[in-house]
């Protein structure tokens, strides 16, 4: 018997240990929430190590994410910034095209009402001096334009072409001192000459007893042979009558805001 035990002692020990483990497991299955002394000891012993390991792992992760990963993030950020910029530019272009569309629609509606063939043109330059009032448009003799043709905007008369090149023209604005347009007050049909005064217009030869009031609309009379009849020139701002004299002084604000002029129409022919 002793010989037998001695011979299979390791096997017996293994079986006993296995049985003990099974019994322990079986016992612990019923005591789910209870912490054994062993478990408590292990947990207590391992806790500081776990904290340290956790900190190291966290540190490593943090370094990776905040440095190595950041390299990629920075690159991504640059890409996003670039994308954002290009999207903003596109948005601005869309807004610009929308505004231009609105302006061109107004211009076309105005020209339709005129019943005259017209050619659209873009304003590409202004006068290089401070005293003259001219603009440069991007259409010239190649587009069939010639000196003397009237130029209008959606709000009213802009001026007339005075100089021509193959692909551009110079337009004398109605506010230039050398510009004079035959005009009449729409309400009373009082006639006069609308003379440019740089920022505004004045009506020359408006008789003293003529009925002109602030807010009256001044339109072209069609007498000069350049502008068709009835195009808006401006609104009467003030009227002054001297004690003596044949005429009254009338100041007119142009209907067209020349500082924001971008697109114009050149009236290229007679009535349709």
């Amino acid at each position, binding site marked *: 018997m002793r010989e037998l035990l001695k011979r299979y002692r390791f096997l017996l020990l293994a079986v006993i240990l296995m049985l003990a483990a099974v019994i322990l497991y079986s016992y612990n299955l019923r005591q789910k929430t209870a912490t054994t002394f062993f478990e408590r000891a292990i947990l207590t012993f391992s806790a500081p190590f776990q904290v340290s390991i956790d900190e190291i792992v966290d540190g490593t992760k943090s370094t990776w994410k905040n440095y190595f990963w950041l390299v990629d993030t920075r690159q991504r950020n640059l890409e996003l910034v670039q994308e954002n910029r290009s999207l903003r530019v596109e948005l601005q272009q869309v807004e610009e095209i929308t505004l231009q569309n609105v302006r061109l629609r107004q211009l076309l509606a105005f020209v339709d009402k005129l019943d005259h063939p017209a050619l659209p043109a873009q304003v*590409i*330059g*202004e*006068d*290089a*001096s*401070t*005293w*003259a009032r*001219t603009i*440069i448009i991007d259409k010239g003799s190649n587009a069939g334009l010639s000196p003397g043709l009237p130029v209008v905007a959606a709000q009213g008369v802009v001026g007339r072409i*005075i*100089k021509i090149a193959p692909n551009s023209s110079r337009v*004398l604005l109605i506010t*230039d*001192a*050398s510009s*004079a347009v035959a005009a009449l007050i729409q309400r009373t049909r009082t006639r006069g000459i609308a*003379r*440019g*005064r*740089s920022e505004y217009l004045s009506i020359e030869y408006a008789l003293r007893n003529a009925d002109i009031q602030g807010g009256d609309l001044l339109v072209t009379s069609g007498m000069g042979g350049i502008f068709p009849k009835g195009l808006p020139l401006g609104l009467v701002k003030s009227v002054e009558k001297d004690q003596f004299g044949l005429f009254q002084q009338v100041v007119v604000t142009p209907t067209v805001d020349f500082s924001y002029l971008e697109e114009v129409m050149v009236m290229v022919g007679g009535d349709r």
Partner: protein
Amino acid sequence: MRLFFLLFMVGALFALLQSSVFPLLLSPNWRPNLLLILVLYLALSESLFRALIAGLLLGAIQDSFSGTSLGLYISVYLFIVLTTQLLSEQFNTESRPLLLLLIAGATLLQNILIGFFLAFFATAAPPFHLFLFAIPPQILANIFVASIMLSLLLRCQRLLGNRSGLAGLMYQSKRHVS
């Protein structure tokens, strides 16, 4: 010939800037007149003959980009060239403040001359107050731009060496070498 071709190119570039770029950024009275500054510079640094030809050419360019008729700026620039040539004999044009003062004077003279020519020759001159209000901002704008241009020229001169004299700067112009 090379000088005049160069002048033509620079003049056209300045006129383009004045008619197409400055209007986008500045109100009419605050736009500097680059051509006037160039005319004044050439009047100080070149011989009378060359300065007159330059005034003629630059005046024609300016006339093409402004107003209604050719000849106004030609007359004004020729007058300014003559006056500057006479004055440059009397003053030390190497002095930078004096040069800027000359630019202020030339701007004033230009406006007076334009007002005079328009009043006496044109069918209808712009209102007189237009010129008066325009003069102070124009003088300031021209002085500001001229001082920047002089600084740039000075840098260019350092880069290129002093083989070409530049009036009003460190090195005396060819014309003023004793």
